[in-house]
């Protein structure tokens, strides 16, 4: 299963990077969203997908899934929500002020050096 997951993660990262490199601001935001999904799955896969039961204490169960990556991912999910919200607002504010979402036009000019 890890092999399949590794490929899925690869595709997520590839799509994310492709979108981030594009010229449309909205696509960049979509890309970062995909990137965080990819990262979460990557952490999960790196820890191993084994374990027959969730990491919650129960009688007679010894084969728990690894809890540490889960804790890390839980933190990451919430943070990525915050990040998405901030860049979303940032992006549409930039769009409203500069009247464009073309990344090529959104670069600073020489006066700001």
């Amino acid at each position: 299963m890890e092999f399949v997951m590794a490929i899925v993660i690869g595709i997520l990262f590839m799509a994310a990077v492709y979108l981030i490199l594009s010229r449309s601001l909205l696509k960049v935001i979509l890309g970062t969203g995909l990137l965080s999904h990819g990262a979460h799955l990557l952490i999960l896969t790196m820890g191993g997908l084994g374990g027959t039961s969730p990491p919650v204490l129960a009688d007679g169960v010894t084969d728990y899934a690894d809890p540490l990556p889960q804790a890390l991912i839980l933190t990451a999910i919430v943070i990525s929500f915050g990040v998405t919200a901030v860049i979303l607002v940032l992006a549409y504010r930039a769009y409203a002020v500069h009247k464009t979402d073309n990344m090529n036009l959104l670069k600073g000019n020489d006066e700001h050096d």
Partner: protein
Amino acid sequence: MKTNDVILQTTTKVVFFIIFLFSIHIFFAGHYTPGGGFVGGLLTTGALVLLLLAFDLKTVKQALPFNFTIVTGIGLLLALGTASASLVFNVPFFTHAFDDFTLPLFGVTSLHTAMLFDAGVYLVVVGAAITIIQSIGGDA
């Protein structure tokens, strides 16, 4: 824009409380079964978002007259306070304490300072998420 969706609004009134109560349950259960401050907080946020969608921003603000930035602040203080309270007892920062107590009505209950910390997390999540959504929604 005026929405006048009676079915949605009526259902929401019921469903909101179901989700809200569930979120409280999941928050308290978090230490032993899946759940906790993050999920609880997010579920509450979800319930509030549902309210926002069914009614409008103004109505929800009147119904729930909290300043959610202050909720965020209270949450942070609660979390930091719980973490630093251990210093008063001369144990390292972030040392939690727990024990079983017999309470009326609940019977034997395990009380844990981690729960207070989790409550801080809950409040921050609700506060921050609603602040974000209200800001965006209120931006004309």
